[in-house]
């Protein structure tokens, strides 16, 4: 399934990606990074807005650039590229705020039937991982290529 998404830029290791969100608030540069965790074989997925003129990334800002779906589809594309490079790794993801975690959840929910063709998806609830199911509010997510 091809969803509208932004052109993505990446470096050799495919652990850092960048794209530009375009909307009513203008052009906003966004950075995605996969960070190696202490638990072997797990990377954390985080993304946020690049602060112009600095190397700082803000992952709490709400851009309101009217392109949430396209942004999430672009992040999903980065996950696809990353896991092709590192097929046996788990990706841990949680929103920087509860509403943002809910937004990720809605994104996974909407395309779950497509995602599960290629990925195992788990949600964290009450201190346990369970296979992702629609209609449950999870605290965090884990994804791995099948």
């Amino acid at each position, binding site marked *: 399934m091809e969803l509208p998404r932004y052109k993505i830029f990446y470096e050799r290791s495919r652990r850092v990606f960048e794209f530009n969100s375009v909307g009513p608030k203008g052009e906003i540069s966004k950075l995605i990074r996969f960070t190696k965790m202490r638990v072997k074989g797990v990377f*954390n997925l985080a993304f946020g807005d690049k602060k112009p003129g600095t190397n700082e990334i803000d992952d709490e800002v709400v851009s309101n650039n009217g392109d949430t779906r396209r942004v999430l589809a672009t992040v999903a594309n980065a996950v696809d590229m990353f896991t092709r490079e590192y097929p046996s790794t788990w990706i841990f993801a949680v929103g920087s705020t509860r509403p943002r975690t809910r937004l990720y959840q809605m994104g996974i929910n909407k395309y779950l039937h497509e995602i599960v063709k290629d990925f195992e998806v788990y949600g964290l609830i009450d201190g346990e991982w369970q296979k992702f199911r629609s209609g449950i509010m999870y605290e965090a997510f884990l994804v791995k290529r099948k």
Partner: protein
Amino acid sequence: MKKKKNNNDKRLMVEIDNSLEKYVDMPLFEEKVNEANRILSKVGLPKEKKKNK
């Protein structure tokens, strides 16, 4: 000077940009990473079923 990234170039939807390498080991999203490490050390990973060969 760094070239401005062009979203409108539809020829390629992905493009390598090695200037991004500086972010690979830069301390970023530290609060989130610490929280993720805390959760994972507590709950671990899902138990995976062994695949039948």
